[in-house]
């Protein structure tokens, strides 16, 4: 009885679940990096505005 197809399915689905989760974590990290970059830009703009007023 050759059940290799079931074995292949089980391993590929397991690794797919793990990789999808890792990819989701990676995407969240990227989104956060972008938001930090936006904050940095906002802060810099505000500092420059303050400097020009004073």
């Amino acid at each position, binding site marked *: 009885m050759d*059940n290799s197809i079931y074995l292949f399915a089980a*391993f590929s689905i397991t690794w797919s679940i793990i990789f999808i989760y890792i990819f989701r974590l990676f995407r969240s990290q990227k989104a956060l990096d972008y938001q930090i970059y936006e904050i940095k830009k906002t802060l810099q703009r505000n500092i420059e505005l303050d400097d020009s007023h004073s």
Partner: protein
Amino acid sequence: MLLALYTIFIYAPVEKTMGVIQKIFYIHVPSAFLAYLAFFITFIASIFYLYRKDSKWDTVAHCAVETGVIFCTIVLVTGPIWAKPVWNVWWTWDPRLTTTLILWFTYIAYLMLRRAVKENQRANLSAVFGIIGFINVPITFFSIRLWRTIHPVIITSRGLNMSGPMKFSLIITFIAFCFLFFSLLLSRIRLERLKMRFAEINEIMDEMNFKK
């Protein structure tokens, strides 16, 4: 992980009655134990949160549930794939299978609850849910001893019920899965803490009327 794959596919012998399909066992069993471990971490972190009211314990509990659900999903997917050629059915309402499915739904409900409730109630309600929900874990673990079941019993009073090379392969796979589990859990906790810090910075910026 490569060593684990080597032991699963090359070192471990092919089981006589089930054949090559039995190798699913090496990912099915460690995933189940790590799901239990994740829910145990949630249980402990929830108690600590209610005791100390420190948000870091709430973060640990939440992240452990998420990681646990991933591993519980692996158990629920690999189980039926293994059952089909061996039991000739994808699913049967066996005590172990049913309790595992209930366990999965319980922690999916935990994650849904966190999204549904307001922020000021979220941590408290989640902690209570994390403690009560853990009742399912020992029920699931002991279900094969408490009720009549067709699910095989691996851990007996005499230890692991299998041959030497199989035992060795299981231990190696278990260690590899532990590394994977803790790296996923720690990455998730770090990400959640970063999100919280970022939200705090945003609040401060709003209070200071920064022009965005």
